[in-house]
């Protein structure tokens, strides 16, 4: 099993269980041995944590680094993989300054008073959906009844399933849910699992390359509220209040990275591959071609976040009891740090 080809969406929250306290104990501020004398005195050190192993949802960060966009904005950026620690928890605890997350995760965090803020939508529309091998002949959500869903333990999953199955006129209570841990989509669906929640841009493309095509039902096609932002670029309220200039610089450089990646898919795929050589070249190349145009899609600029999306999805999360306290959606995101120029 090649763990690094696991579905980034499904595996985002899978980690050995560690409490935040253990995270703090395990992740010291030390470890960096950068030679400060080599860097310009005005350079600001910044860490950004991925949500999982590198994939094309992250390409813009690597492009911004490789093309020197971060450096041009006075930033020395380290891209870290949190491993078993949760990226958002590291951010909340001040161990990193930025992280890749998702709208449902950030909203749940805010429901628990974790002060995180989304500063950009990395992909403008939801590219995730429930996928199954074509051979299983599952073509619509009503057919999930009686089938087994392989999940990763995210609180939002069962609510999504219920919404899609109900919207398609099926019996949501007849869907069996099993946690599949770290097993990847292809392994799980050859065993006892019928379908999983994936990003088409990664696992879906991999399926095509393997000659094991999938049927996929995108969540956004069954409820308007489900066209939510995933992945997103996030920071903390503390970071915004203490270093607004750093946030602005970081978002500007990242915006240039994703905009460049959207227009230069082959070159950007190479950049990602250099940063993560273990990735499969064909997968990265084809995924980048598919996903690149979707970073900005129909938005006026990369990263733009809609008040309606945040309000509708937050209400949906509350209605479906994924969160049990009201969250003020207007405080969960901001477009204030996005550069004004159209991409």
């Amino acid at each position, binding site marked *: *099993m090649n*763990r690094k080809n696991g579905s980034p969406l499904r595996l985002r*929250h*899978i*980690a*050995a*269980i560690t*409490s*935040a*306290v253990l995270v*703090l104990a395990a992740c010291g501020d030390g470890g960096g041995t950068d030679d400060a004398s080599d860097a310009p005195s005005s350079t600001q050190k910044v860490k950004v944590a991925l949500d999982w192993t590198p994939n094309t949802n992250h390409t813009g960060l690597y492009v911004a680094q490789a093309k020197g966009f971060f450096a041009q904005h006075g930033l020395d950026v380290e891209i870290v993989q949190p491993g078993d620690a*949760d990226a*958002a*928890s590291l951010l*909340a*605890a001040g161990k990193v300054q930025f992280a890749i997350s998702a709208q449902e*995760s950030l909203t*749940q*965090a805010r*429901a*628990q*008073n*974790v002060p995180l803020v989304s500063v950009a939508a990395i992909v403008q529309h939801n590219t995730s959906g429930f996928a199954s091998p074509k051979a299983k002949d599952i073509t619509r959500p009503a057919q999930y009844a009686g089938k087994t869903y*392989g999940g*990763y*333990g*995210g*609180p939002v999953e069962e609510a999504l399933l219920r919404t899609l199955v109900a919207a398609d006129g099926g019996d949501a209570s007849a869907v*069996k*849910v*099993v*946690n*599949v*841990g*770290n*097993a990847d989509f292809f*392994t*799980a669906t050859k*065993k*006892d*699992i019928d379908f999983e929640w994936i990003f088409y841009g990664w696992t879906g493309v991999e399926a095509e390359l393997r000659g094991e095509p999938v049927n996929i039902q995108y969540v956004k096609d069954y409820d308007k509220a489900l066209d939510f932002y995933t992945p997103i670029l996030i920071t903390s309220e503390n970071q915004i209040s203490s270093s607004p200039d750093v946030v602005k610089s970081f978002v500007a450089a990242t915006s240039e990275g994703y905009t460049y990646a959207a227009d230069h898919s082959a070159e950007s795929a190479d950049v990602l591959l250099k940063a993560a050589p273990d990735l499969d070249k064909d997968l990265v190349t084809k995924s980048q071609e598919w996903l690149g145009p979707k970073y900005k899609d129909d938005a006026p600029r990369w990263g733009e976040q809609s008040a309606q999306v945040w309000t509708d999805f937050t209400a949906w999360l509350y209605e479906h009891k994924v969160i049990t306290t009201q969250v003020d959606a207007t405080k969960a995101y901001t477009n204030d740090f996005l550069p004004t120029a159209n991409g």
Partner: protein
Amino acid sequence: MADGSLAGRRGRRVRRWAAPAAAIVLLVAAWQVFTAVSGTEQWLLPSPTDALAAGREDHASLATHTLATAKLALIGFAAGVVTGLAIAVVLHLVPLLRAALYPLLVVSQNIPTIALAPLLVVWLGFGLLPKVVVIVLVCFFPLTVATLDGLRRTDPAIEDYLLMSGANRRQLFLKLELPHALPPMFSGLKIAATYSVVGAIIAEWMGADEGLGKYMIVAKSAFRADKIFVAIAIVVVLSLAVLGAVLLLERLLIRGRTPRDADV
């Protein structure tokens, strides 16, 4: 004399439990005071009362998950005991096999279970079997090693005496070696007992539809550190319960031999 002795024994039993109980109470109190005074955010370090409230909130689903984990741990523990004892007996009776396989047994304990677990899913699917295998791998080794040591340390003088009396291999094993191995076997059993619950949690992380392991993963995704602490507390209680059962069994099986030994 008899009355005094009985009262004294009762008093000692009470005092034996008082110290650890007091330590736990003090620890929990200190934890509560620390969270109150330091103002630490709940998602970072919940207070004991936060954890208690979360436990009450989820008591119904917690009961379901606890039952699932307990069932899995007991099945895995039973399988681990049978496997561990069987390996110990076979290796003891066939010295050549012992020489060949003992190093492999040691190596089996260097395999990081977290890395192996996903492969077990690939090989065995998502049912009960891979989870039981994980728990067996975690549990059997201490039992096998302890029992093997016990079987080997039989008093040679008594062995010679029995051989001179015409005892065959089977009688020697059943009458002398096995009884003699009981104390170390129970030492191994206690270690295996505590490992069985933790093994069940690890097994659930690799794939489960119920169990405290799954509960922890969902709680973590929802930034509910308070729920994670509840689950941890339940795991500790479960582990102590299994250990307690083994201690009770040990007392029944081994203390029962003491009077005879004393008489001899």
